[in-house]
């Protein structure tokens, strides 16, 4: 046994366990954070599946034969509600708003001659096949977007299993912004949009955590290295110190974000190039890439969110005595960054229960993720309202930060873990 090892080990454990920052950061936060993340993931999965199961489908039956009736009965067994409409043309049904009238995103069209073709397959020529067309509304809602059309697809499979293999095939198409894009499979589209569904939230998470660390470190460093005291005695506007710190952090974080996005884009590119795109899906021609206005709004949303995160980091770090303390304090904001980003990766915000939706919308860090989806789908209002909300939030935080910097309290303020109360050091406590 190494001489003195046991003694050192006991001392280390005592010191580490008694440090409230370590206790909170290493033990309590993960104990809360991971169950919350797990709950978020399973909630997203469940709600996407439930939505698909509860799905309503509108059916255009242009065949009106025996087998089309059987097919619809089979659909009824898989899906909760099936509405048969009199319209014959899917394009017209979509443009007339029939889908929103029945509150559904799925439309199925059984072509004329469906029953005749099935009969021919079963009794005369097994090589005769037929098809049904499935039209799904694409909303860019996340990784589970394709579940609805998959449910209809499985209904076709069960029909085939009952009668004959491959007698009916499903031909999926996508409805984008009220227009039918024939032959575009929503699943392929979802896969292609994967980089956006995952890359954007992850990029935002990393960009925000990274820049918050920079801002917090920069303020705490001034305190730790004892340079802040001198800075506050200089004939200058106190607000300039705050703005200088924020702007410096934004520039460094911006450079970091660009480098990161270039790298991440390359990384995602290596995946998407491996996805077979035989269907010839082209996101640009489908209008599923943001317009210049969309990019502008997305940039604005990212910028104001970044500013709000930095201002928050500056305020929090003002309560810390050193860099380590500042980083721990900023760490408490991370769950508010991770949970909405992960949730929105899988599910659309409009699909959440009201209370959860309000909670997610109240967190400013959700808005760039929401904006990235919205601008892709041409919904500039959502992005714009998000920007207004985050700007208001940022202004409040900036005001608080500027008030903090205007006083000398910034030198002496600190958060105490017992009771989390703020205190100023009195002269009697000075060393």
């Amino acid at each position: 046994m190494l001489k003195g090892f046991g003694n050192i080990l006991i001392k280390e454990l005592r010191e580490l366990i008694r440090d409230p920052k370590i206790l909170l950061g290493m033990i309590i936060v993960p104990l809360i954070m991971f169950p919350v993340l797990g709950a978020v993931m399973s909630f997203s999965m469940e709600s996407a599946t439930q939505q698909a199961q509860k799905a309503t489908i509108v059916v255009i039956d242009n065949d009106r034969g025996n087998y089309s009736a059987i097919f619809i009965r089979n659909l009824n067994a898989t899906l909760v509600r099936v509405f048969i409409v009199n319209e014959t043309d899917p394009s017209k049904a979509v443009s007339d708003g029939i889908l929103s009238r029945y509150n559904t995103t799925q439309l199925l069209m059984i072509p004329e001659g469906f029953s005749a073709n099935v009969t021919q397959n079963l009794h005369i020529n097994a090589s005769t096949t037929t098809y049904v067309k499935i039209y799904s509304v694409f909303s860019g809602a996340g990784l589970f977007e394709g579940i609805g059309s998959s449910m209809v697809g499985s209904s076709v499979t069960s029909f085939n299993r009952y009668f004959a293999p491959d007698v009916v095939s499903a031909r999926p198409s996508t409805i984008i912004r009220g227009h039918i894009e024939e032959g575009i499979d929503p699943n392929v589209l979802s896969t292609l949009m994967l980089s956006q569904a995952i890359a954007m939230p992850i990029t935002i998470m990393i960009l925000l955590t990274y820049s918050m660390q920079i801002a917090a470190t920069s303020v705490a460093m001034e305190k730790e290295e004892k340079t802040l005291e001198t800075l506050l005695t200089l004939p200058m506007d106190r607000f300039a110190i705050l703005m200088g710190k924020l702007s410096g952090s934004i520039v460094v974080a911006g450079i970091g974000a660009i480098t990161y996005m270039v790298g991440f884009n390359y990384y995602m590119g290596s995946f998407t190039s491996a996805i077979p795109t035989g269907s010839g899906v082209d996101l640009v021609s489908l209008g599923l890439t943001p317009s210049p206005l969309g990019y502008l709004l997305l940039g604005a949303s990212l910028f104001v969110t970044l500013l709000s995160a930095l201002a928050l980091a500056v305020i929090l770090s003002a309560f810390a005595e050193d860099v380590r303390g500042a980083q721990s304090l900023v760490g408490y904001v991370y769950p508010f960054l991770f949970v909405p980003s992960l949730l929105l990766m899988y599910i659309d915000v409009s699909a959440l229960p009201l209370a959860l939706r309000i909670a997610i919308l109240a967190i400013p860090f959700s808005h760039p993720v929401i904006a990235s989806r919205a601008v892709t789908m041409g919904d500039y209002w959502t992005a714009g309202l998000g920007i207004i909300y985050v700007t208001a939030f940022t202004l409040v935080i900036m005001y608080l930060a500027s008030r903090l910097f205007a006083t000398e309290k910034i030198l002496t303020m600190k958060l105490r873990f017992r009771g989390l109360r703020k205190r100023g050091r009195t002269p009697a406590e000075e060393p």
Partner: protein
Amino acid sequence: MDVVRKADEVRKIITYLPEEAGVYRNLSGWEYLEFMARFRTENRDETRGVVKEAAEICGLGDRLKDKAKTYSKGMKRRLLVARALMTKPKLAILDEPTSGLDVMHSYHVRAIIRRYVKEHGVTVLLSSHNMLEVEHICGKVALVNKGKIVAEGEPQELKHKYEGENLEDVFAKVVGFA
């Protein structure tokens, strides 16, 4: 001038050197002086003049080009004292300017302060626990015990009045532990 109500005005005419002041680790000594000078100068020429003055005061020579993180404690203190005096303020408040320094650096810092007061008429308010240092540098002394001034005057006058060999003796007698 009311230091609370007119804090902005007061900051223009004073400089302050805190006891535990630090420097920016990744700036060179020269860059640090430039950064500080810009707050109190109007143009580039004036800044350059002030920084040159500071370089002369601190006497760090070519080491001013090196990053401050490579400096010893004494070098940092010399840089900071130069920073506090370089703009010739009406009042420079220096809190323990030589605490923790070795003999050579302490000697240099004291020499800087004495020379600057003499040559440029800057008033220095210096706080120190080192009574011998106080006696050596200061023209007027106030002895403070438990937050209150207990004796005040020129060093010679105090020594004579309290029959002390030096100011340390005087302090001990005034406070009553000798």
